[in-house]
């Protein structure tokens, strides 16, 4: 009880919880779940964008996209490390993804069908992610918060790159403009779903808010996102596919239509267009990489043994 008091008072005083500090089991579990889910999202998120690396329409765009997807791998690394500070291993965390036990953001279960999708993913998906991540820079668990600070810097860069892709399309040929609008139409609703269910339906939210893991509610973040995008889309001379979208003078926010929650839950359950494909791709990479990882660790052991032998000799 004493320990819990200390823990809660730290939370109260906005002192970060660190790996060696005592923390409630549920806090630890919640964090492991959330951070690993976040890590998996970075890794699985490489796939839809990776789909266009080979076909990027210019060398410059190819380099930017490649670097971006690489950044996501880096984010995955930071986050897997953060989960390891909570007493799990990267391998176990990854196996939980492959077995379907751990989730990742459902948005990555939609296919990238045209080049414009790469722009839309950057603008909308990274845009939604950032709002969440900015909030998480102030999360109560130290390693997570620090990982988020690093990630946020790169992520806002990504969002601008995504917007830039769409900007070029919006100024382009009629085919390019159509491609741009089409991608926005397909990615808009799934992006809104990224913030999760309504606050009233969100099971984990309350406790997370108390522990200052979360610092804003799903609906608050979603509203912020809509307000931001509804303005930016004007710059593109495009529209969002929502007839209910309208500026509300009273609330000083945009009103918007209701999300198709059946689709949301369905994709979460594994029935999105690409759930199987994404998991299969990750499992394949992992399984086909097994011999490489094994060779590396056997070699490292050999080397160490040799070095020790040498040392012994030198001492002797």
């Amino acid at each position, binding site marked *: 009880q004493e320990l819990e008091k200390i823990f809660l008072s730290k939370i109260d005083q906005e002192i970060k919880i660190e790996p060696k500090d005592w923390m409630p089991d549920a806090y630890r579990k919640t964090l492991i779940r959330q951070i690993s889910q976040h890590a998996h999202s970075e890794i699985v998120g490489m796939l839809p964008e990776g789909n266009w690396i080979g076909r990027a329409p*210019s060398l410059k765009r190819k380099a930017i996209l*490649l670097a971006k997807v690489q950044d996501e791998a880096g984010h*995955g690394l930071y986050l897997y490390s953060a989960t390891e500070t909570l007493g799990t291993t990267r391998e176990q965390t990854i196996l939980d993804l492959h077995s379907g036990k751990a989730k990742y953001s459902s948005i990555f279960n939609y296919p990238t069908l045209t080049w414009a999708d790469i722009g839309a993913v950057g603008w909308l998906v990274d845009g939604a992610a950032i709002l969440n991540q900015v909030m998480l820079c102030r999360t109560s668990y130290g390693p997570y918060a620090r990982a988020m600070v690093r990630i946020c810097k790169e992520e806002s860069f990504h969002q601008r790159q995504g917007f830039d892709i769409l900007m070029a399309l919006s100024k382009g*040929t009629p085919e390019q403009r159509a491609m741009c609008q089409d991608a926005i139409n397909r990615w808009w609703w799934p992006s809104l779903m990224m913030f999760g269910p309504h606050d009233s339906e969100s099971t984990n939210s309350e406790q997370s808010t108390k522990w200052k893991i979360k610092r804003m509610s799903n609906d608050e973040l979603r509203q912020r996102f809509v307000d931001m995008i509804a303005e930016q889309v004007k710059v593109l001379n495009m529209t969002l596919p929502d007839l209910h979208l309208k500026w509300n003078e009273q609330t000083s926010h945009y009103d918007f239509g209701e999300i198709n929650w059946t689709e949301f839950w369905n994709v979460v359950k594994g029935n999105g267009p690409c759930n199987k494909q994404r998991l299969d791709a990750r499992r394949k990479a992992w399984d086909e*990489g*097994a*011999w490489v990882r094994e060779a*590396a660790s056997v*070699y490292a052991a050999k080397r160490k043994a040799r070095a020790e032998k040498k040392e012994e000799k030198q001492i002797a």
Partner: protein
Amino acid sequence: MTKDKLYNYTLHLADNALMLAQRNSEWCGHGPVLEQDIAITNISLDLIGQARSLYQYVAELVNNAATSTPPAGGGGREGAKEATEDSLAYLRDVREYKNCLLVEQPNGDWAQTILRQFFFSLYQYGLYQQLLQSTDATLAAIAEKSLKEVTYHVRWSSEWVIRLGDGTEESHNRLENALEELWTFTGELFTPASYELEAVKAGFGVDVSALKPEWEQKVNEIFSEATLSSPPAGGGGREGAVWMQAGGKEGIHTEQLGYILAELQYMQRAYPEAEW
């Protein structure tokens, strides 16, 4: 006339970098370990960077020579606009690419990718070192900038060759298989194409045949540390020697390249009027 030689020579260097970048980038998101996914992507990015500098230089040469007839494979469409890095990278057909056969070979498994990178980076290292002395200031500058990157590529791929060769039995065998797959494509690196000979004569190019002894020595060194059998003597009619394939640098490729191009060029071909 010098412009023409310079054009082909530089295009050859650019195509090498682009094709290997394209191949390596297929690993992005599918690597065996996250750290190595990042590493191979890094190499890919370096190579794209090199390709871009080189293509930009070629584009400049082509556009400045606009008064004389443009060389074949100028990469422009009919009624040509100006050449750009992208028109050069994306708008030629298979016979016009001048990359060596090695870089267009499929990724295969990690061992094959590693060994391809090792052979190529080691070659590129020797090449760029010599290119520092090029009478062409732009080429020398590109070489200088690239050399730092390539130094890292050599180190990284050498370490992996050693790790796989001296790792498990499986990794050792896979590396031996990769050797059997790829060795035949290494001879071409050191057999100068017509434009390379001209480039040497003109003073701006590197005599690739002279790079061979050092390359072979380094390969043997690393192979020995990796407990791999020495690669067989290359080339020619020598008894027991492995035949060395060639042709890529003169545009006679393996059937692989056509498929790379279909993917690489899709957008530029499908939307000829568009800017991206």
